[in-house]
């Protein structure tokens, strides 16, 4: 199963390519032809109001809600028909909406789970640049507040700590690509700044991030490329600076007046 990851030498295209995917959630037609590309070490932010399909896009890439049509390619490997665990082992980690840490497991157990024998991930063993690998100690160094609580249960942590744990858990697999679904949700402004800082550090360490956010300011401050999703389709694609000038998109699809952006 670990042969699913091609060696980086043979890789030519972008890290992630989503080509015209159509995804259904039950009977509802959520993603109606969505395409994007993401390069190694870049951050793409998906913006849009609630219910426009942002989470479904994350779930499509992770294999949790596979698209019915279209193609998702990761490092030249088609993800079509691949179960979530194979996609994860190939180097795509998820920081899900609502954090979804394992509440009855301790912080230590939460972090070690992606490296357990049942998650035989070649990525977790070999991924990451030399000297840039994430392991238990390295993650605790990055998130010192977790270090004080390694034996506490995940459910006893504060919202901010749970978010750090969810990110730490994703890093333990040494992913090339991290899918982040509303990491700022429910966090205090100070913690949102912390999340922003973490994302920049992750990019500096070579991780690419596909970010779904409601927090426009956060998304624009970290993203290299911004997409706006409305009713299952992209209505905007460009740099954060482009979006700041696209008053009509901001007003119509994000519900912010252009004036507030300046």
């Amino acid at each position, binding site marked *: *199963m670990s042969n699913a990851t091609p060696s980086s030498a043979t890789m030519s295209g972008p890290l992630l390519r989503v080509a015209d995917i159509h995804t259904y959630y039950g009977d509802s037609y959520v993603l109606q032809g969505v395409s994007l590309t993401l390069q190694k070490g870049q951050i793409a932010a998906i913006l849009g109001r609630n219910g426009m399909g942002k989470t479904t896009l994350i779930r499509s890439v*992770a*294999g*949790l809600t596979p698209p019915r049509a279209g193609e998702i390619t990761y490092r030249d490997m088609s993800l079509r028909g691949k*179960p*979530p*665990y194979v996609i*994860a*082992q190939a180097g795509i*980690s*998820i920081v*899900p909406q609502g954090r*979804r840490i*394992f*509440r*009855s*497991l301790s912080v230590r*157990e*939460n972090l*070690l*789970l*992606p490296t*357990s*024998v*049942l*998650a035989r*991930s070649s990525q*977790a063993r070999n991924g990451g640049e030399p000297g840039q690998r994430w392991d238990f100690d390295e993650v605790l160094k990055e998130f010192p507040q977790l270090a004080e609580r390694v034996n506490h249960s995940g459910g006893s942590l504060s919202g901010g700590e749970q978010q750090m744990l969810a990110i730490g*858990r*994703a890093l333990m*697999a040494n992913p090339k690509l991290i899918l982040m679904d509303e990491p700022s949700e429910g966090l205090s402004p100070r913690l949102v700044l912390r999340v922003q800082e973490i994302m920049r550090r992750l990019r500096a360490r070579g991780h690419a991030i596909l970010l779904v956010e409601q927090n426009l300011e956060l998304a624009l401050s970290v993203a290299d490329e911004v997409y706006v999703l409305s009713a299952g389709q992209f209505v905007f694609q460009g740099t954060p600076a482009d979006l700041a000038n696209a008053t009509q998109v901001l007003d119509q699809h994000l519900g912010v007046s252009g004036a507030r952006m300046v």
Partner: protein
Amino acid sequence: MHSGILQAINGVSFAALLFLLASGFTLSFGLMRVVNMAHGAYYLFGGYIGLSITRYTGSFALGVLGGGLAVIPLGYLIDRFLIRRTGENHLAQVLLTVGIAFVLGDVALKIWGGDSLKVPTPIELRGAIELPGGIIYPAYRFVLIVFSVFVGLSLWLLYRKTQIGAVVRAGVDDREIVSAIGINIDRLFVLVSALASFLAGMAGVVGGAFLTLYPGAEWEILVYALVVVIFGGLGSLEGAMIGALIVGLLDAYGRWLLPEFSYFVLFGPMAVLLLFRPRGIFGREG
């Protein structure tokens, strides 16, 4: 006074058997969210196979081991080719697994007949132990208690202290995320389901040595196992331990003090508990 103590030992030894059966049942439910009503049939089938092995080889230990092992492939095939098709539909699961239990019961009837059969125990376990105070009690029941405590401790260590156990607990918390962090949850299902089948089959041999095996025994024991997991909370190993003790003792004292109401003594408290704690003693919210 003596009878009271005697009933306590009766209750605890019955609890020991119930725990063997209910522990696997509750773990597999907690992880896979499948209500497998054929679990009682696994018990009976394992018991009969263990009986045949014991008769053939003369070794009770081999019978216990073989009865448990034999149910693993049976449980796997039923899981893989039948239960898997029901998806998340609990009603379909209950109907399907009840049907499977009927079929297995009939197959057992065809092979082992309708008489009540007792799994022969080794000579050393047939005697009685005299307790201080002059209480005489079958040695087998004491061995059963010790055996069940040993199995319970092993399961607890596996569940609470190992990485595999942590993965199973994570699966009880959030199956989808377990697969999204790179764990093949299907492989985990097979492991836990095999463990549950093994425990049920083994319980059949152990129980068949004092409760005997007969057509219909699978339903009687299944009702008890269900009450145990409802008391303890579905998916909780600790709950299965406590639930088995409560049910074993309620049953023993109920039969002794209120024989005509013995079922009420069991189900009355269960109903009251469900009113206040719908998820059982150790059941978690959500």
